[in-house]
């Protein structure tokens, strides 16, 4: 065995604290170390060349690189040693930067001693390392997209156009998500549904896309490359194959309820489509409001009205099992409920609205036909106050983050309101106007300048009723004056929060979420569309609040990641997997329960002999089994008990000698 130790200066990051010369001298004395040296930047081209040359020249069999965290450059160095024929699993990284020089810059001597211990432990560990080869597992080249908003639509279309099959699952009866509810979109003011509906239709018609609306993902098992997914198709009580979308049933239905699509500002029947351009254009009976129950049929109005006899009150939920290799999460957002903002009259006064409610009032296909009317009395409001950051940037309301889109949509709202009610007055309360996007700032300036909207810098303290007016008490910190506005309507730009049940879905998929419940990316800058659960990708507002251009970009990025994954026939996985030592394992099966990935099963041979077996594809190499086994019967390759023991002994050596 000929171990080479390479110690990196990392400029002054390491060499500015540690005594490199001493480290080299001491490392050279360690058992089995054939060569030790240092270099200013090992990760640089010449640094890597130096390592490669020494491996060849001195016939090194194992390598220790003492440098930064393996998270930074483990791959760089693994590739470098592999290029000269050394198995990359015979390389060990000793982290003497993050775990030593950076944290102990005030005690250089002790730090040098600690670095030496870290290097010694790495040498001990690598001396027991075995060459490993990546394992290959089958790859099902189909994808599941969860959420049929613009994010899910875009990702599904991109992947389907790339030639792979897509299962798109949407919870509500139609595709479209929140974008379908919007009137016009900033900064170009194009009609939202005009640009969205062609995409929805394309999804429905695409030969590679299997669309499941009014459906939910019930269970997911397996790992990247081979997920087994159970989709639950909720019963619509209308046969989608027979329904022509004529609407005769809704005409006949006697039950009127608030329409969720209109944020409750408009009405629908108990048998309904959420909006006329819905995809698929199939009616759904909402059994919660239908006069019939599962056991008792008291009304058959729609049944008789339906020409093609599509109504079936006895429809049952269906379960569909599919297999996919990757999953895109595009579950979108909800708004912080108005009720959370009582000081602004949220949930108390009917004329205090959310941004989405205001979108519906502005929409030509909305409940008021695009005429802005107050919900309380139907009057056209002549003075409207918009309150930005309602709940956002407000740790006390649990949302310290900026919701990112409301500055822009509030400017849009003020403009559209002025166009709808030219003699009306609009006031906007803001903390800062955040308009960072292509042509966004210009849009906001145009709204202020041309529409003469009064922007008031400050937060509103409270909103209360005086006769038929809503009195807004706020401040303008620019002039230093407290202000009062007697408004007819107040629109709150409520904070964006993750959509309902995101946390449950994330748990099912073992995909981490952040402290606010948004899906977490692996790396905020360099890997923004991947979940740390392998094979799971993120798109749209489910990851963080974002507008349509950003949502579409991220969805396409997630799609390209999936297409990249699917460019291989089989999936190659890291060989850091649990291996059973049949000599020691007696089948006690303690490890079966602790494995978080259900990768271990108990096998009973015909002769009654018992032992466990590991499904390599499922194993994530976490080591819970190894820590649990009382008999050293299971080991994670690359991190075997022997290796870890050697590492610990090396670390404790000084103390033993004392």
């Amino acid at each position, binding site marked *: 065995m000929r171990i080479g130790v390479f110690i990196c200066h990392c400029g002054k990051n390491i060499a500015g604290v540690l005594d490199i010369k001493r480290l080299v001298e001491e490392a050279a004395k360690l058992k089995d170390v054939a060569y030790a040296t240092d270099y200013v930047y090992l990760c640089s081209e010449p640094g890597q060349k130096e390592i490669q040359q020494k491996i060849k020249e001195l016939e090194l069999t194992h390598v220790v690189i003492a440098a930064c965290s393996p998270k930074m450059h483990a791959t760089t160095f693994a590739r470098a040693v592999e290029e000269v024929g050394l198995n990359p699993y015979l390389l060990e990284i000793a982290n003497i930067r993050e775990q030593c020089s950076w944290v102990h810059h005030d005690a250089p001597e002790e730090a040098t001693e600690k670095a030496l211990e870290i290097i010694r432990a790495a040498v001990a560990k690598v001396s027991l390392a075995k060459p490993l080869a990546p394992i290959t597992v089958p790859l099902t080249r189909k994808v599941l997209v969860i959420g049929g908003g613009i994010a899910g639509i875009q990702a599904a279309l991109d992947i389907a156009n790339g030639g792979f099959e897509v299962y798109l699952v949407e919870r509500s009866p139609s595709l479209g998500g929140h974008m379908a509810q919007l009137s016009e979109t900033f900064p170009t003011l194009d009609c939202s549904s005009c640009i969205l509906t062609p995409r929805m239709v394309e999804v429905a018609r695409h030969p590679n896309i299997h669309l499941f609306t009014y459906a939910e993902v019930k269970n997911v098992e397996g790992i990247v490359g081979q997920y087994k997914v159970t989709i639950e198709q909720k019963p619509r009580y209308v046969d989608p194959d027979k329904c022509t979308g004529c609407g005769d049933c809704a005409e006949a239905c006697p039950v009127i309820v608030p329409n969720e699509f209109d944020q409750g500002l408009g009405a629908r029947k108990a048998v309904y489509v959420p909006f006329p351009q819905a995809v698929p254009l199939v009616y759904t009976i909402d059994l919660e409001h239908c006069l019939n129950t599962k056991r008792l049929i008291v009304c058959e109005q729609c049944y008789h009205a339906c020409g093609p006899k599509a109504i079936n009150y006895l429809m049952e939920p269906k379960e569909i099992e599919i297999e996919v290799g990757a999953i895109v999460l595009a579950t979108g957002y909800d708004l912080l409920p108005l009720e959370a903002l009582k000081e602004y009259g949220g949930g108390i006064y009917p004329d205090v609205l959310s941004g989405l409610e205001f979108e519906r009032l502005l929409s030509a296909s909305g409940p008021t036909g695009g005429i802005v009317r107050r919900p309380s009395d139907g009057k056209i409001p002549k003075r409207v106050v918009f309150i930005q950051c309602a709940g956002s940037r407000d740790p006390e309301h649990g949302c310290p983050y900026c919701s990112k889109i409301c500055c822009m949509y509030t400017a849009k709202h003020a403009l559209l309101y002025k166009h709808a009610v030219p003699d009306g007055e609009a006031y906007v309360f803001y903390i800062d106007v955040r308009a960072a996007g292509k042509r966004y700032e210009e849009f906001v300036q145009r709204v202020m300048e041309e529409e*003469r909207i009064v922007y*008031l*810098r400050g937060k509103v303290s409270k909103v209360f009723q005086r006769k038929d007016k809503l009195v807004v008490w706020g401040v303008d910190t620019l*002039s230093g004056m407290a202000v009062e506005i007697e408004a007819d309507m107040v629109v709150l730009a409520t904070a964006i929060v993750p959509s309902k049940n995101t946390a449950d879905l994330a748990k099912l998929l073992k995909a981490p979420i952040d402290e606010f419940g948004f899906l977490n990316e692996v790396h905020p800058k360099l890997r923004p569309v991947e979940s740390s659960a392998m094979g799971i990708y993120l798109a749209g507002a489910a990851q963080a609040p974002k507008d349509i251009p950003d949502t579409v970009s991220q969805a396409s990025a997630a799609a390209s990641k999936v297409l990249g994954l699917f460019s291989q026939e089989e999936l190659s996985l890291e060989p850091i997997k649990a291996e059973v030592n049949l000599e020691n394992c007696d089948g006690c099966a303690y490890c079966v329960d602790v494995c978080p990935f259900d990768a271990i099963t108990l096998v009973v041979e015909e002769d009654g002999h018992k032992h466990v077996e590991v499904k390599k594809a499922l194993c994530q190499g976490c080591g819970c089994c190894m820590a649990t086994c009382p008999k050293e019967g299971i080991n994670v390759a690359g991190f075997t008990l022997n290796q870890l023991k050697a590492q610990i002994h090396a670390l404790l050596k000084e103390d033993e000698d004392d």
Partner: protein
Amino acid sequence: METISTNKEKRSTKLRLVLKKQEDWLKKVEEISGQNVFACYQCGKCSAGCPMSAEMDLLPNQVIRLLQLGAVEPLLNCRTIWLCASCFTCTARCPKGVSLTRLMEGVRLAIFRTRKSDEISPKEMVKETLPQIALIGALRKLTA
């Protein structure tokens, strides 16, 4: 103007500026000056460079702010608009191309027109020994 409730008597009871559309007065100032007050985004660069700002009770950018809010009362009572030297420094520097100099003039003229009187009496002024340029400047700025 009639809708503003920040006059002195009311202020003592009500500390809030009641915001409503104040088009009449503002329109007049904008018409005289040819400026759109809503083009100003309150960056304050005008105030940062104004040579007279040390003497002023309202900063130049606050003059525009009050116009945007329709808060006429504090404007009528301020010294700033009269101290403005009409030097055009703010106009030259404004990133949005707003001519605050012209707006200041607009406010002064709007006041003269409502009051129907001059700020100074030319008869008294000529008695003082002032450089001719100051005399002409003062007469131009402080009389209708």
